[in-house]
């Protein structure tokens, strides 16, 4: 199917190589004198030697990079360094840090969610950081997310957790129990009640975790660190939670929607509630909306997964002290964090920024309150074997796909069966290495 494409690609490649060759050689001749001149400007002190200006490379996903890029000018000016913020595809930051770092082509710093901490630390591609006095300003959930093997592997600056959007034209707020949610939907008469990702064929353990772990269920036991040998997906609390989710699906409270369907339903006013995170505020603004806490389960507050975003230092950076300084002296300061927040609003992980945000943005405060109830997503590499099985099990419940499987002969007749199966798959995967 792609013979022709291959050939075209090959020609393009040859052409680009030729161009690169020409471009490279001409650039060299232009640049050389410039490099020699530059240090003379930094020769403020009589005694200093004259190295070329230092350069830091930061990788970040588009939204973050676009917010950060205009801010680093102040640091470049003050510190006399060149900070290059590279827009990097969100999905490939981890993979490329793992491969480019060892090859000597990685960044000095990069921004990523915390769920990769275990994997990048195990692989030795990130350097630990001693946050010193600013550590006390960071919420515990942030430090917990970035801790692995007794070290902290970055500066956590933002948290993320799901909460419940409501259509404020149709309802006054989010009720505190699921029974009241159902009643509110019946009263409003919308086509769907709660749109939550993780159904409609699109398995999504992340959005469904409050249904499982709010009332005593858990994936890995957390005790200072996550313990991959203690899996609580099929303890009695998790099973009864899963059965309760099943009830909510059966009585029509939770609709069978994947992410896209839950979004369009909310935007078109066909659903009263939408369970997702603060990143969707722009999408939700198609209607008048408000945000509240996810209703409680049997009296226990809903505990969503908290994602923590932070800045890491590459172990392969040759300028570690400079990289540490960039974080401690610049990026972690309240002013920069506030400016970042203005460009790319994410729940603050620092108390000082939260104090500012709380007064300015009540909706962000709701998400923050939801995150405060939550637990950090496990950051150990074993988590990789969880998403698939748990997403599948919750998908069975959400889509009511019960029955006996003809190929495997296994019967899943209830939500409990589905969770037991998932727990077994996770245990097998971890045991199998």
């Amino acid at each position, binding site marked *: *199917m792609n013979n022709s494409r291959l050939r075209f690609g*090959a020609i393009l490649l040859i052409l680009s190589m030729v161009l690169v*060759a020409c471009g490279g*050689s001409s650039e060299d001749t232009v640049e050389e004198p410039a490099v020699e001149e530059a240090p003379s400007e*930094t020769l*403020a*002190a009589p*005694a*200093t*030697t004259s*190295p070329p200006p*230092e350069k830091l490379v930061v990788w970040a996903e588009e939204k973050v990079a676009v917010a950060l890029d205009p801010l680093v000018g102040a*640091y470049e000016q*003050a*510190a006399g360094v060149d900070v290059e913020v590279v827009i990097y595809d969100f999905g490939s930051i981890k993979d490329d840090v793992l*491969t480019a770092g*060892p090859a000597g082509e990685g960044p000095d710093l990069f921004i990523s969610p915390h769920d990769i901490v*275990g*994997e990048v*630390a*195990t*692989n030795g*591609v990130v350097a630990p950081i*001693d946050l*010193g006095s600013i550590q006390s300003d960071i919420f515990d959930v942030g430090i917990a997310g970035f801790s692995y093997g007794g070290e902290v592997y970055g500066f956590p600056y933002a948290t993320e957790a799901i909460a419940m959007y409501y259509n404020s034209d149709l309802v006054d707020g989010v009720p505190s129990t699921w029974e009241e949610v159902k009643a509110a939907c019946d009263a409003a008469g919308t086509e769907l009640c709660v749109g939550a990702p993780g159904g*409609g*064929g699109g*398995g999504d353990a992340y959005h469904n975790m409050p249904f499982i772990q709010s009332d005593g269920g858990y994936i890995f036991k957390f005790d200072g660190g996550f313990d991959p040998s203690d899996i609580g997906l099929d303890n009695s609390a998790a099973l009864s939670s899963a059965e309760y989710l099943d009830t909510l699906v059966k009585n029509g409270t939770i609709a*069978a929607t994947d992410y*896209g*369907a839950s979004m369009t*339903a909310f935007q078109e006013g066909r659903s009263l509630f939408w369970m997702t995170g603060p990143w969707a505020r722009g999408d939700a603004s198609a209607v008048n909306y408000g945000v509240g806490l996810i209703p409680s389960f049997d009296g226990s507050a809903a505990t969503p997964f908290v994602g923590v975003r932070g800045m890491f230092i590459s*172990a392969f950076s040759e*300028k*570690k*002290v*400079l990289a*540490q*300084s960039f974080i*401690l*002296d610049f990026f972690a*300061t309240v002013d920069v964090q506030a400016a970042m927040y203005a460009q790319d609003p994410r729940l603050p992980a620092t108390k000082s920024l939260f104090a500012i945000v709380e007064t300015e943005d009540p909706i962000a405060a709701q998400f923050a309150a939801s995150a405060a109830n939550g637990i950090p997503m496990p950051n150990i*590499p*074993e988590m*990789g*074997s969880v998403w*698939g099985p748990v*997403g*599948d099990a919750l*998908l069975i419940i959400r889509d009511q*796909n019960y029955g006996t499987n003809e*190929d*495997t*002969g296994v*019967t899943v007749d209830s939500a409990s069966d589905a969770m037991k199966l998932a727990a077994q*798959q996770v245990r*097998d*995967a971890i*045991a*199998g290495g």
Partner: protein
Amino acid sequence: MKISTIIRYVLLGIFNALMFYIVPLAISYESWFLLLIVGIITFLINITYLTNRLKPLKWITPGFIFLLAFVVFPAGFNFYVSFTNWQTGHILTKTQVIERLEDLTFSTEEQRGVEFDLYVMQDSDLDYYFLADLDENNLLFGKAITSDEFNTINYANHEPSFKDSNNNIVIPESLYLLSGKEQIANSSQLQELSLLVDKNTRINLYNISVFGASSGRIFSSQQKYSYDSDTDILYDNTQNVACTLGDRGNFICGGESVDPGWRITVGSENYQRIIDDERFRGPLSTVATWTFQFAFFSVLLAFFVGLFLAVTLNNEKVRFQKVYRSIYIIPYAIPGFISILVFRGLLNPDFGLINDWLDPIYQLLNIEPIRWFRTEASSKAAVLLVNTWLGFPYMFLIVTGALQSIPTELIEASKVDGATPRQSFWRITFPLLLVSISPLLIGAFAYNFNNFTLIFLLTGGGPPLVGADVSVGYTDILISFTYNLAVSGGRGVQFGLAAAVTTIIFFLVLIISAISFRYSKRLERIYGNI
């Protein structure tokens, strides 16, 4: 001299210059493999284009080099990886691991979290001095030295004279205090320097501040690990133990293996696992069967839709031929991943347009709407439907092209002999088409056999095959199944295992292709003479 010769030498010159440019780079990165490749390629290119004796090679050499670079090398590398334990925790080489471990510092419990102002100074000999303001009784001053000089016993002293009565720092005339900006300009040097407090304790510059005062941290004067290359032993200085070499590419300190480890060759272990591991073997037959079905029906459906359209539009009586042809190319022109995502939305069972359109039919026949993506049959149908949409324009194009090359006399002759149009199509046109198209069909089969994008984006492998030992779905094909196993293994990503599976898939496709080519050769022998 002819202009073409001049161009040739200029281009060759540029090429050689570029290659020479790479040589010192490769040496500085100790990348001997790259150096070897650069050498071979430069040699090949020069020998081909400098002399006139090897004229035919001029056309072949570039292609040969690209074949090496983009086909043979990745395949060979993949084959190599399949014999290693390349996985999370083992992605570096041993040299890199030792470098990483030797780079680690450590602080004892009481040294941890102590943060204090640190001043950096220089004397007229350009030597650096640190002044650490720990507390009232510890205003430590001394020469900043590298770890090689630790044995020279340049310990720091308490120097109260650096503070005046108002507790402000006073710097003597003989020293120059570096500003934050100047410290940053020299940070590459400064990060190697320490202020040695005593035999076991040192102070390092940790945070250079351009907005306030720089600060330091206290570390143990020893690194966390030290490595002796003669004996190949790593010492863990936190516990004071010597670490042994594990057989999986790890150092083992006090019974615990140290992360990161490095990659080693493990022989046929990955292949053995595929055979032995129940988690893998269990769903394998289901997945393999569907992979073959998927690849076969994808090609078949796309081919017949394309064939039908091409033959129909090939009729001279059709008006606006070009318009129709352009329209049918559109699915080919839209990037596949976009159409796939669009289809995912269209097929949504609750809100998708397709079920909306089909609604009258559901009503008429009084049946339940199709629950796309939620049942095995509907998911498989959706996958084939979308792949047919994506694939038919290509078939349409090549069939249209091939049709033009079939001499019309043959068809006319068969007409004269009394063949019906149907007979002349199936007996003459179709076999002749197959002669030229069957290699492309085989190619399309191999492509679909590994059509990861479609499955990953459209169904994600779902719906789940409930009850399997591992998370796998009904529409998972071998390559997406492998992907899931490799990235969601017990502990991170397992490249070695994934490479082993892809090697097996490679040989499968190779065998199928070989048999098919054999068959198409036979076709050629029968019909090629016509």
